[in-house]
């Protein structure tokens, strides 16, 4: 097991498996969020379901997610350090040929997403007052509306969702290859399904702040 974790392939597999868990989560989370368009009552009931009625399940999920994020970030960090060490003298000139912008921003985009996740949890789950002074426990719908009435927060969330799009676009494509599961392809760099997943998730998430900002959700 330790040998597996020590190898570059093993670490990448851990990163991929935890990434898959996180992809599953963001899809569910996104679907849940969209209930905000069904009205305050329905949305708050959904929040109550997660935070009170099914709190044991929620905790179990939280633990899994926490461990996944930690392993995902740790493996990424260690692999990044390995890569940096592998080329101590940089090229004076190196032109990318086929790599996507998405693949080249995985690392810094990942760091940004990590910061975003911390702030996001602080804002809507832990109720950090410096992020949302009017936060009220139990009033999930109201909290969302209050936050996204501020254009800065909308902008911040949209930027984060853009990075999520890039991260998912490369990540969901790469993960099957990391796990040795994808089929051979004439154009292995082509990625249609990952593009659809990335767009659906990103658009789904972005609808919430946009809905508030545009006055559809109030």
């Amino acid at each position, binding site marked *: 097991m330790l040998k597996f974790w020590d190898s570059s392939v*093993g670490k990448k597999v851990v990163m991929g498996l935890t990434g898959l868990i996180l992809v599953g989560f963001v899809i569910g989370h996104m679907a849940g969020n969209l209930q905000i368009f069904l009205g305050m009552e329905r949305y708050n009931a959904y929040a109550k379901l997660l935070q009170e009625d099914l709190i044991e399940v929620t905790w179990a999920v939280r633990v899994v997610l926490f461990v996944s994020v930690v392993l995902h970030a740790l493996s990424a960090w260690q*692999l990044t350090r390995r890569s940096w060490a592998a080329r101590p003298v940089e090229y*004076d*000139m190196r032109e*990318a040929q086929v790599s996507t912008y998405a*693949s080249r921003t995985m690392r810094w985009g990942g760091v940004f997403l990590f910061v975003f996740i911390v702030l996001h949890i602080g804002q809507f789950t832990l109720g950090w007052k410096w992020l949302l002074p009017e936060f009220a426990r139990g009033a999930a719908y109201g909290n969302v509306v209050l936050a996204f009435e501020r254009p800065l927060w909308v902008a911040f969330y949209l930027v984060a969702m853009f990075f999520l799009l890039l991260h998912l676009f490369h990540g969901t494509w790469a993960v099957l290859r990391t796990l040795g599961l994808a089929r051979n392809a004439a154009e292995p760099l082509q990625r249609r399904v990952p593009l659809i997943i990335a767009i659906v998730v990103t658009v789904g998430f972005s609808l919430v702040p946009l809905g508030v900002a545009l006055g559809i959700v109030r």
Partner: protein
Amino acid sequence: MSGTMNIKLKVWRQAGPKAPGKFEEYTATEVSPESSFLEMLDVVNEKLVLEGKDPIAFDHDCREGICGMCGMMINGVAHGPSKLTTTCQLHMRSFKDGDSITLEPWRAKAFPVIRDLVVDRSPLDRIIQAGGFISVATGSPQDANALPISKMDADEAMDAAACIGCGACVAACPNASVSLFTAAKISHLGLLPQGQPERYRRALSMVAQMDLEGFGGCTLFGECMAACPKGISIDFIKRMNGDYIWGAITEKPEKVTLGSG
């Protein structure tokens, strides 16, 4: 035939593995567009020699794109601007009169510079030593046709086996990863029935060796495949990962049975 060209060269010069390196500029004059890239360097070198200066050292041998000896970064691209082409098969007609060309060696911790554009690629041999073979001693095989192999498998194995070991995949990879080279050999042998008995053991030990040599990990940028003069697909990396995972799951500790010899 078109006229000749003048080309400005910015070349990495480094006297030895420990010596500091720096760029120096040269002008290649009256270059024929029909000449190959290395012939252009030959002419520059001949002039340097006659001036009593050290010529630019670069590796090369067959000059027909198969031995894998040549290779340098040409304007930031491994083996230069032509796709599926080694440095020796690149021709000057790919450039224009007055162009500036930057030449750098393959850069990776595992490929230390020996001199100028010459690097030490011995880690590639050691990766093969770790398991890139089928353990069959001379004289022991059965008849060649006793083991039918589907044409599809044989063709795919040949696609992987086409690797010339030039190291462009490492050079082009932002992580300086050697995954494409390693995966090509694991796949070549793993696709054939002869390679099955050692298949998973081979994947485990070759991956361990490539890590040990100090190469980076694979993040599937795809740059290796674009740089590969033989167009080897990153699908083979997927195959290597699969073999590695299955090997890690099913690996049995080697038992030493005393007196079994």
